[in-house]
């Protein structure tokens, strides 16, 4: 079994950290995993994306031209990645930042108002976890419990007080099915 996930958005949307949490969760489940970032030359802002590959065997390429699942946090990411999702794969769209629908009908598309839900929960920086909840609900290569465990173990100490609200963000996102 191997799966590839791309998470893409603006720098500062927690794209890279979300990918790292998925990687921790996969590692803790005994899987092979790679996480590889790509970002522009800007120190702040700009675009950021990362590719996570999870597999039962030794991983070859850490990059995939046609990933099975893509989470897009903004419009440029949707424009870039919608054509690349593997047929039959999953596209999770942050509807708070994107004003159009997906064009493809050979993939499953999930619309989540990520920023709005995060703000309802009191912290817009939870958007990434809302989106990851949506990803795992539609592409269950890991469980929400795996992610909760990863959060508990790898969220920086100063943010540990935000654990419960992170769990909530995951669960709110997981309510959305394609």
């Amino acid at each position, binding site marked *: 079994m191997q799966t590839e996930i791309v998470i893409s958005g603006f720098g500062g949307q927690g794209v890279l950290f979300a990918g790292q949490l998925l990687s921790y969760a996969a590692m803790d489940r005994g899987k092979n995993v*790679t996480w590889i970032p790509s970002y522009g030359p800007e120190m702040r802002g700009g675009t950021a994306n990362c590719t996570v590959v999870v597999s039962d065997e*030794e991983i070859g*390429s850490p990059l995939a031209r046609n990933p099975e699942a893509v989470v897009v946090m903004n419009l440029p990411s949707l424009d870039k990645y919608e054509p690349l999702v593997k047929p039959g794969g999953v596209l999770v769209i942050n509807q708070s930042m994107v004003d159009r629908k997906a064009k493809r009908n050979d993939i499953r598309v999930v619309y989540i108002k990520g920023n709005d839900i995060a703000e309802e929960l009191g912290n817009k920086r939870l958007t990434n976890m809302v989106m990851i909840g949506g990803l795992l609900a539609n592409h269950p290569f890991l469980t929400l419990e795996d992610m909760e465990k990863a959060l508990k173990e790898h969220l920086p100490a100063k943010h540990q007080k935000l654990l419960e609200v992170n769990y909530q963000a995951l669960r709110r996102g997981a309510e959305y099915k394609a």
Partner: protein
Amino acid sequence: MTKELMKGNIAIAEAAIRAGLQAYFGYPITPQTELLEWMSARMPELGRAFVQSESELGAINMVYGAACTGKRVMTSSSSPGVSLMMEGLSYIAGTEVPMVLVDVMRGGPGLGNIAPSQSDYNQIVHGGGHGDYHTICLAPSSVQESIDLTVLAFDLAEKYRAISVVLTDGSLGQMMEPGELPPMQPLKTKFSDWAVSGTEGRERRFLSSIYIDPPAEEVINLRLLRRWQQIQASEVRYKDYYLDDADFAVVGFGSVGRIALSAVRTARAEGIKVGLLRPVTVSPFPTQQISELATRVKGILVTEMNSGQMLDDVNLAVAGKVPVEFFARLGGVVPFPDEILAEIRRMATSDLKLEGHPRDRWLARMAA
């Protein structure tokens, strides 16, 4: 020990520390800077030496000085910075003192870019600095190998009084993967009989790469060459995948080696009997293994992120016994597995030729 999720650059830094690194000297350059930053925190914490030098020239010469004491020392940089270190590397080779260099390669020539590349292969494997010398060059393709080969680099450098280079690239440096670090080795306390330390209780020693008398320099050159023969005979390392029954073989090192693995697996699933040989030491090069491979496959595909620098070494090993094909991405572009897969399919289904040069055929295909 348990596995930790680590970036390649950090994995190399921490592995070096655990291998008993006494001193690190370096200069910031993307995409290796995390390595230097890790050292800047960890080395002082352990009471070991860390200096951010004024330039790569400064760094390599600080390494040179510290290496003359026989203590474990290293530096790290990326392609343009490594170019600046070539002077020092030649002196270090000529003085026969051990050191480790990590080169996290990026796109070039010139300032190039900060994307992954393999275009320092010739600079590291076939010289770079002046004079007759060879470096031991280890090319990891994963975080775990980055750890294991960094430790090995120190052991080999010491064993052969040579320069060991860990040749990695921006993608391996930035990529996170689970890896298991070795336990902390104690620092060395006994040093070789050539190392300087102050003359207390013994004759004085001096370390230099100057041999004004040409016949004396010739003796040194011959000694280096014989030592290199010994390294070639004993230290070749590679990994093979699906080669037992293979009709075709792919040869690639480092990050392209692992990307090729994905392509090889897909091709196998399609029924193409193809395997992969991934050199782990690109210097010494697995010449014999590739020469032997050439007697039992119908074609060999060489794939790199440079214009065919390793291809030349593969060609020498194959010696015209079997057609060789070439595929590359240059300038910091990383290939996707499907690009290599297309080349494997083409190799398996077309009439391969011995005439001409694989690089020329590749360029012609690109133009078409």
